[in-house]
């Protein structure tokens, strides 16, 4: 088991995808080197490690690279099965459900939130982005139900996949007028529960700092 080889994470402080990897590494108590990336001026190391997509996060382990945040989290879970297994080892159905919901989060949330801040407020496309975001989070709220975590009693894969996006609730409210506490009270309570874990508290962004960052992105890339 190559657990003594060096681990490096190429990442960006604000990225919810990178935060997933940081949470997983912390849950497993894996020591690693964190290297902040400048996406406007991509490093040699990033370009070499992820030549196809040139995106973060990238995990480097003993010289091998893995990209795509959910796949990095699965890799971490398989390479360091304990402590804190994120996917249940002996329940293929529970694993399938976890993968399904993690993909749902990947397919829906980032796209909706990007449209929400990028597009001009008041335009039909902006209204659509808001509707799509609300529908996605409402679906996730229903899926969580009365459980402590998405997998049941233990913090796991889907929680890791979603919790970084909870720091964006403040931004969603500013750009879309959607109040998380009113629309998704279970998700809000679940987010507080997750943040009691050190791995989560240390990884996820400060909501206000994130909002300022998004304002900067909007000025640079948003619709005028």
């Amino acid at each position, binding site marked *: 088991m190559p657990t003594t080889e060096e681990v490096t994470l190429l990442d960006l402080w604000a990225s919810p995808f990178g935060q997933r990897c940081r949470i997983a590494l912390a849950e497993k108590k894996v020591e690693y080197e964190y290297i902040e990336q400048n996406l406007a001026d991509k490093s040699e190391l990033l370009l070499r490690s992820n030549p*196809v997509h040139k995106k973060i996060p990238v995990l480097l*382990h003993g010289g*091998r690279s*893995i*990209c*795509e945040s959910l*796949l*990095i989290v*699965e*890799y971490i879970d*398989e*390479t360091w099965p304990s402590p804190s297994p994120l996917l249940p080892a002996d329940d*293929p*159905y529970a*694993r*399938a*459900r976890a*993968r*399904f919901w993690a*993909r*749902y989060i990947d397919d829906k949330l980032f796209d909706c939130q990007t*449209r929400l801040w*990028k597009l001009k407020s008041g335009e039909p496309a902006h209204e659509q982005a808001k509707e799509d975001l609300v529908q996605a989070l409402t*679906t996730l709220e229903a899926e969580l139900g009365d459980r402590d975590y998405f997998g049941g009693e233990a913090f796991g894969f889907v929680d890791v996949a979603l919790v970084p996006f909870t720091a964006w609730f403040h931004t969603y409210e500013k750009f879309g007028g959607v109040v998380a506490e009113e629309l998704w009270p279970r998700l809000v309570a679940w987010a507080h529960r997750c943040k009691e874990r050190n791995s989560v508290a240390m990884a996820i962004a400060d909501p206000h700092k994130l909002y300022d960052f998004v304002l900067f992105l909007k000025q640079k890339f948003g619709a005028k």
Partner: protein
Amino acid sequence: MGSPELVKVIATFDSPFSHRAEAALRLKGVPYELVLEDLRNKSDLLLTHNPVHKMVPVLLHGGRAVCESLVIVEYVDETFQGPPLLPADPHRRATARIWARFIDDKCTKPLWLALWTNGDAQEGFVKEIKENLALLEGQLNGKRFFGGDAVGYLDVAASPFAYWLEVLEEVSGVSLATADEYPDLCRWAKEYTSDDKVMKCLPDRAKLLAHFTAMKDRYITTARSTATNCLPA
């Protein structure tokens, strides 16, 4: 392992994503019942078991539903005995999954749009899919299959390019992957479609051709509308 419970696959005959689910089951030697769906008139069975996406394929095993074709392939691999579809080594597993994600996230949409749009937009999509197919082909690296000597997870994931692509090229009149440009990929396509387990769940070519031909005008309309609505990157 829960093997004695009945396995059903809700599918459509023409979908390569439905094929992925069937191929995984056949490669593991798992008997199953195929339930063909009419997507213009979705059944209660489908809507009950995939309420989120209302899409095929859906695997039903002992009454529980697994949705999303690649999730189904991994579920089948983990649940049933038989030759493993994913390698044991975590890095090799991650690599196979990364390229399967690449196919779903970066290839299927530009492929579709390259086939059915026109003008400058089409040129852009053709360039994109050709580049991405070249990257995917690179993963073969002289091997018989993406999985090595035997059909594996990534071969099943890449199956749209083994069989459906060529039929779609004929219907659309758009050539995307000739044997000259993609010798390894075309060789792999023959190997994949010749596998005795895989070939049992490939749709009849004449029927597929007739179906796509009948749908051509609709594909063109929706593809051109999608292309117009694409947000600039």
